[in-house]
């Protein structure tokens, strides 16, 4: 059965692999920052735990969640990329990532996103943007209390 290009782009092997075998899966022991995120409209849920160093650097983070391949893969890939980054760096990566999945302008530093860029297939599926952003919003909430 022929598959559309859009679908292949959305579910690339790397993405499916992350969703099947999520990295940094689990909880951090307290004390740490924690936030819960959900998309009530589709039922995706995520919890992130996050330890911040004195220097404002994300020393460690883990997540647990349930939801579609996009939300879980995005979470897994994100944890790999923002570990070791500062709060500010994480914020600008979030903005760059948002631009990529929404097709809303060029990212400032595409390289920093690494394989997260593969999620740009989401552009063609506007209903899935909130899946891709779920983990990112939870991290923002944990860091900024938003």
């Amino acid at each position, binding site marked *: *059965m022929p*598959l*559309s290009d*859009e*679908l292949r782009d*959305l*579910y690339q092997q790397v993405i*499916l692999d992350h969703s099947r075998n999520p990295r940094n899966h689990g909880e951090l022991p307290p004390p740490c920052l924690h936030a819960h995120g959900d998309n009530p409209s*589709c*039922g*995706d849920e995520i919890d992130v735990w996050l330890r911040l160093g004195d220097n404002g650097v994300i020393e460690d983070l883990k997540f647990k969640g*349930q*939801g*579609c*391949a*996009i939300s879980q893969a995005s979470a897994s890939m994100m944890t790999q990329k923002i570990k070791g980054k500062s709060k500010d760096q994480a914020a600008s990566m979030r903005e760059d990532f948002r631009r990529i999945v929404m097709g809303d302008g060029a990212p400032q530093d595409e390289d920093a996103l690494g394989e997260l860029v593969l999620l740009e297939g989401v552009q063609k*599926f506007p209903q*899935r943007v909130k*899946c891709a952003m779920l983990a990112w919003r939870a991290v923002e909430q944990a860091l900024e209390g938003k």
Partner: protein
Amino acid sequence: MDWHRIRSDFPVLDQQVHGHPLVYLDSAASSQKPRAVINTLSHYYERDNANVHRALHELSNRATEAFEAARKKVARFVGAASEDEIIFTRGTTEGINLVANTWGAQNLKAGDVILYTGMEHHSNLVPWQLLAQRTGATLKHIPVLDDGTLDPASIDTLLNEQVKLFAFVHISNSLGTINPAKELCARAKAVGAVTLLDGAQSVGHLPIDVQDLGCDFLVFSGHKMCAPTGIGGLYGRMELLERMLPWHGGGEMIAEVRLDGSTYKQPPHRFEAGTPDIAGVIGLGAAIDYLEAVGMENIHRHDANLSHYAVQQMREVPDIRILGPQSGPRGSLVAFHFDWAHPHDLVEFANSHGIAMRGGHHCTMPLMKRFKVPGTTRASFYFYNTIDEINRLVEVLHAARKFFT
């Protein structure tokens, strides 16, 4: 029956989605509309549109006549004793809220039991929860067995004299289970409980006769039975309706208004405040005309064939877990689960092959918890669907399995 001709009455079905012919398998969420219904709306707006009641000009007379004729059709369609027992609502949800806020608020007190089941739609849970908070009534529910039926032992113990209201779904939108409504109503009556039957998935799918079923209230949604969106019905036994205080206040429901108080009309008008969805009501009447022309027995048989065939075929897909009854009668829907793909990914995959299904909790979160699934994917059928479409679905499920594993 020439089902292919009937299918061609539905213009929406004749389109391509992502390069494939649309296969619409989401009728349990909302049905498609035949041309006859769409044309009735256009005709109404192009020739007869006017506010109903209390006017004497030509358009208003025509609109009022068509409006009240639709009430008669609904009454006949569900077997009510009189058209005065039919109240127009936005749909099932509003109907249940109406009963909770009128009959419920008047008749329930602390300690009374509201009984529902573990397979209710949120619409048949949340209004009772809100009512319980307000009145102090207690909520109980009949658990669902692994095969998707209600636990008979729990019915025996829970359906007792403390129960003032028993609200249950006729056909589960998540399992396909057809509950034995007549028997349950009779048992409720024996203990003095009032019954509310959620007919969202049964009215328009089965022949319905409220007097034979013996329910006190029946609620349903027009949009699931070929009628426009935004219109539905509440049947209530007159004996109950005439003792119920109004809910919404406004025009059309009053007998006399003074600046310091008012008196109210008889049912059904007492419960229809404000300008109703006139075109929606007339469209509901047209949908009933259409369904009756096809024949409710025919529709029921076709529905049953499709879901029987679907269950048979889908069982052949490895790793699938089909919820609800594994054999015997079921509503025209099949909800299923795979460990290897989240419902949303499966729905997205199917959509890219032209198939419209729904994935998620289907507004039955407690049931998802009960079956320990994050959600399911649901294919639901109506009389315009075909065996070919089910074959296509099964093909796509195989392809999805290959793709995601």
